[in-house]
Each structure stands twice: as C-alpha cells, then as structure tokens.
C-alpha cells in the first residue's frame, strides 16, 4: 500500500553534534531513491526555519536549553511520528554527563574563574537560550514514538530503519545494526 504522495519529513539537531545527520548523509547514493518517496521540510539540509504539518520528524540531540524545548514542542505538535535518533536524543548522551554537577558552579567556573575570560561575566543577553539545570532525553519532555540508537547509528542502520518505517513495518535493526556506541 504505497502512498501516492511523498511523505513530509522534518529533521533537526537539538543538543546534538550533527553526527547523526552526517551518518544519515552516509547513505550516499541511496539518497536519490529516498527522495522519490520523501520530501524534506524543516531540516539543516533545507534551511526551512519552521516545520509545517509533517509525517515524520527525526530529532538528534537531547534537551539542554529552553530553545531545545521550543523546537521539540514544535516538532511534536506538527509531526505525526516522532523519532529520537542517537544516544543524545535517547538518553541525554554526552551533554548529559554534566547532570551530576551543579549548573551554577559550572557557569561560574567557566565564565568567572577561568583565566582568559576575566571580566566577561556570565552571558546574559536576552537572545541567548538559558540552559536547563539538567540535560534530558526527548522522551522525558514529550511522547516519542520510535528510537534509533547509536552514536551515531550507522548509515545502514538509518537506511534499514527508514525503509521499515516507510513500508509500514515496525522497525527491527537486528544484531549487526544495533549499537549504543
């Protein structure tokens, strides 16, 4: 039962390193047949700033500041299916390694006591998003429908996942493609 329209797909990186996006691009020439079936909406690859109604949203990176929350909520509101891609989106990943520390002490140490940043003070421009006291995975802020683990998931894992999803199958990675690292 193939849909007769291209599925709209949005992607973003929140508190991520964009490694999962790079891994996605590693599907190389498989991108061409993929683009026969999907159309990219908001994404670092298209430069569309806000996502409209979409079928699938892929998000890498966890939630570390207020802006991440706004973007995540926009995605959840507009995407029928939301997928958390990569370690950071699934469990907080590398940025979450700060969770056992006090945010205030971190900011103080970096901006007020480290040599070289003397007299800078902690940046407080109203355009800067403020960090949350802890980094959270996506599913602790909104309901997430699917998870694609890896750091990053390999291109083959992303390809298998996409094909399963587009074909209406519950995605199964199998041993070779399942990694948390």
């Amino acid at each position, binding site marked *: 039962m193939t849909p007769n329209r291209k599925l709209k797909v949005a992607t973003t990186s929140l508190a991520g390193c964009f490694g999962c996006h790079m891994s996605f691009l590693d599907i190389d020439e498989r991108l061409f047949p993929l683009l026969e079936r999907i159309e990219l909406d908001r994404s670092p690859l298209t430069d569309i700033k806000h996502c409209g109604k979409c079928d699938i949203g892929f998000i890498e990176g966890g939630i570390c500041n207020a802006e991440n929350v706004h973007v995540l909520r926009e995605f959840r509101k507009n995407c029928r299916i939301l997928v958390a891609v990569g370690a950071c989106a699934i469990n907080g990943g590398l940025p979450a390694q700060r969770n056992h520390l006090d945010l205030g002490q971190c*900011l103080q140490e970096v901006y007020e006591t480290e040599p070289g940043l003397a007299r800078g003070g902690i940046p407080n421009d109203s355009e800067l998003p*403020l*960090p*949350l*006291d802890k980094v959270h995975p996506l599913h*602790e802020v909104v309901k997430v429908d699917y998870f694609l683990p890896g750091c990053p998931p390999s291109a083959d894992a992303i390809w298998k996942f996409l094909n399963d999803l587009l074909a209406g199958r519950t995605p199964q990675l199998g041993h070779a493609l399942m990694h948390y690292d």
Partner: protein
Amino acid sequence: MSDITARLDSILKRHATARTNLVQILREAQEPEGWIRPEAITQIAKAVKLPRARVEGVAGFYSFLHLQPAGRYRIRFSDNITDRMAGNLPLLERLCSQLWVERGKVSEDGLVSIDTTSCTGMNDQAPALLVNGWAIARLTQGRIDQIAALIRDQVPIENWPVELFAIEDNILRKDVILASTLQPGDAIRVAMSRGRIEATEAAFNQRSWREGLDVADHGQTETIEEIKRSRLRGRGGAGFSTGLKWEACRNARATQRYVVCNADEGEPGTFKDRVLLARYADLVFEGMTVCGYAVGASKGFLYLRGEYRHLLAPLQDVLARRRATGLLGAGVCERPDFAFEIEIHLGAGAYVCGEESALIESLEGKRGIPRNRPPYPVTSGYLKFPTVVNNVETFCAAALIAFNGGDWYARIGTPRSSGTKILSVSGDCARPGLYEYPFGVTVKQVLQDCGAEFTQAVQVSGPSGICIDASEFGRRIAFEDLPTAGAFMVFDESRDMFEVARNFAHFFAHESCGFCTPCRVGTALLRNLMDKLAAGKGSQHDLNQIGELNHLLQSASHCGLGHTACNPILDTVRRFRPAYEQRLVSLVYEPAFDLDGALARARAMTGRDDAGAHLGEVT
C-alpha cells in the same frame, strides 16, 4: 579519643566480639555521640575479625545507624498516612522552627536533626515521634514546645519528664489472649506432662524403641499434636500452619535448633505486638519456651524492632524474674533435660527485617537481606540450624493451646481460620486501639465497635495487605477472606485515597532492601510516578507505566516486600479510579519535571527574568 576507644572495647567484650552481635554492637557504639566514627568502624572490624567494609556496610543498611554526624538529639516523626491525618507535619515544622534547623539537616552546632521515619507503631496515639529511638506519642503543640525547650537546654534524655514517654495500651476488646489469666509456668508444665509414660511401658512400644525416639517423654510430640489440632496459623501475616512449622523443625536432623520471636512489627498500622510485649510478656515467653521444649531448642531470640526500644528494659526484667523462678535457664520447671534461654536483640529501623529470613540475617549481625528460599528457616535458619520463626501473637496463642488443648482453640473462629485475631484499629474512628475478635468477624462489625462513621475505605493488614471500599464491608477477617497480620486503618469520606496510596509507595521505596532489580528500582520508579501525578503532571502514559511495573514486581521480586509493593496502587486504582483520573492533565504525556523551574538556576546566575528566560505551558 582514648576514652571512646576504651568504651568501645568494653562494649565489644560484653558482646564477646561475636559477629552475630554486630548490629547490637553498632547500636551501642553509636550512643555517646549519635553517630559511628570511621575509627570506631575500624576498631570494631578488627575485634570481630571482619573486613571493615563489611562492618561499614552493615551500619549503612539500617535507618537508625549513622555513619555521619546526625545530631546529639535525633528526632524522627512517624510518617504513616494515619500520622499525617493526625497532623504530624505541622508539628514537625513547628519543632524545626523552634530549634532553628531545616528538616533533614543537622543543626550547625551538631545538636539536633529532625526528619520523618516509617510508621513507629503508635497509630492509636498519633502523632508520635522518636527521640534517639525513644517513643513519644500523643504529640500536641504544647508537648512539641516542651521537647524543644528540653533540647535547647541540652537536658539528657534520661532526665526528661517520664510522663512524656508514657505509652497507652488502649485495649478495647478482649478475647482469649487479652483476657487470659494464665500464670507463668502453667503452660510449660502442662505441655511437659502430656503423654508421659514410664520406661517399662516404653519398652513395649516397639516402634519408638526401634526408631530411637525419646520414649520417656512424649510431651514434645504431644504438644506439637495439640498445636496441629488447634489449626493455629501464624499471626504475622503469612498464616503458615504453626503445628507443621514446629514439626518440621523438630524433624530436621540437627545438633541444635532455635526459636525466634518476630517482634519486628513494622507493617504500618500494626501495633498489637507492642501491647502484647508491654502487658503480656509472660505469655509471649511462655509460648517461646513451650516451643523450645517441643522442637528441642535450648535458645530463643526475641527480635524487637528498634522503635520499641522502651520495652527492652521491662522485658529484660520479665526474663530475669522467669530465670529466678526456674522458668528459664538450666532445668526449666525442674526438668533436668530441658534448658532454655532467651536473648533479646534490637532492630535498627528496617521494615524488611520483619521478613523471617531477613530477620535471621540481622540476628546473625548482617544486612537484612532476605535469603534465597528454599531452604526455609525450619530446616536451615539461624546459623543454618533449624529455626522456628513465629510472631508474638502466635506464641501467645501457642501458650494457651499448650495449656487448654488444641480442640478448645479449634472451636473458636471459622473452619479455615481457628482462634482469635487481635486487630490494631486506627485512623478515622472514635476509639482506636486493640480489638480481639474470633476469626470471621465482619469489617462492618469492627467499624461499628470502634466508632467509625462515613467510612470510605479500610486498609486491612497494612500497605502490603488490601484496601477495600464500602461495598465490601460485609467481608470477614479470616485467612479465606481478608487475611491480616492485624493492621486495620480506617479512612472516612474526607480522605483522598490517592494520597493514601502515595504515602504507601514512599514507604516501600524507603524500605526496599535493594537486593533485587525489580524492587530496588521499581519501588523508586513507582514512588516517582505517584509524585508526578501528585504534582499535577500525570497522564495516561504514567498510569500505563505503573501497571507494567506492578506486574513486573509481582512476578520477579525476591521477597514479599516487592511482591506486595504494588498492592496499594492496584487496589486504589481499581476502587478509587476517579481519585487518579482527577490528577491526569494530559491524555498522552506530560514531563515529570517543572520546565520553567529547571531554568531557575540559570536565571539566577545570569540575572535574567525576560520572557526568553522562562518556559510556559504548551499552547
């Protein structure tokens, strides 16, 4: 410093540097300063010949043992739901402000710390607290102010007014146990006299001769037969046949056997053993001695929960009197072949030690972790010897049965639950206290007798029991219907049953021993989920997760604590579903944490309060 070392030395000597006495040693080592210094741990480890980490680990298990300074006066408010209903929290706040200390912290001068603790068994005279383990009940603003003044003036606790520590018994309905007039020694003598046959008759009894049974004394087996005939079942909650237990212990091949009285009474809402130990200690010890005689044990232990510390001295006095009158020691009741001694061990704040194998671990001086079963204590218990572990009330009943015979007892109660049950009634009722009924009494009858009105729910047998609603008040207290160890907590229509369940979820998370994954993590997750619902962030997703966790705990937990931890939530979701649904804000999902609150630290550090520095609700 050398004073402390010398003092610790004498404690160690008094306990024969035995590892099995480790919990008692740690309790006593803690007395002078209110905490156990690292050097003390090292000294104790050396004396009992254990790695110091092992000793430290034992101290770290029990709530009442402290490895960090905890204040010279350690105040712990009992925090069962019935204590909340009686107003414990405002009194806690009052005491905190009077002593300039934050809840959960030690005051700067090291004088005092104030916090909550699990139910201390004073539900009939709530609110109650413990000061260094000593119970003070019937708290009022006046008594709180009095306590604050005593602490401020640093009056030693032994000089506090005695009436502060007075604990009432509130015995409101007596039956065979509470109305018993049995005198010390009566039951032991009757037990010993059962089925006594002369040696010549025994010679004709070929079977006993061939099997090498003690032909001169059938009192032991006859006593066990009486217990079996009585159909007595354990009164601690599990309800196992007492006769079969004693028989299995007797039949287990061993050079030694032990009798243990489980006086750990930690199930919230249960305080019947407190009264039995305060007023009927002879009956308890009588039952233990009869058991020792019947199964062939020469040593008994009373494991007394730390929260009943005030009963220790009076109980030691009773034991001393029994020794002086030949009811304990060598030659009990002038029988040269039966010696029996009873030793009292205090617990140190761990509900899980009410589980019989965890209790035995604690008696052996270890962390109270339930054992892998089988084998059961009757074949492999204290120090791996066959051990009978029975509840306080069970031993009382056993003493009466040894005296009156099993048939007398079996005629009381119902066909499947013989005898009487002592209920400890508390909560929304005019007359909280002890009520002893024959098994088969209806909940409705109990509610009537204790003066309960507009009752919405009754929690039978504590959080690990069952919560019933008004449609079920015709049900009966009996093993075949509503089994109970005794707790009977009443909630009227003004109470929020969700909050009752949430209080119980906190209890189980606090008391989990931590051994197995499902209970250790599961009770913490359940508590967090209940808190999430209470904070107004609940969704159907959370109810689903609670359901999944409940099923996992019921199937995979290592012991009864994990198995029953989900009961309060399951019961109240089923019977009081709207109380939960009122707390759902989303049909899908809501985050557990306050998103705007999570930006507070950053706002403070940057001094920002503009719109971008806040996160609102989802529009």
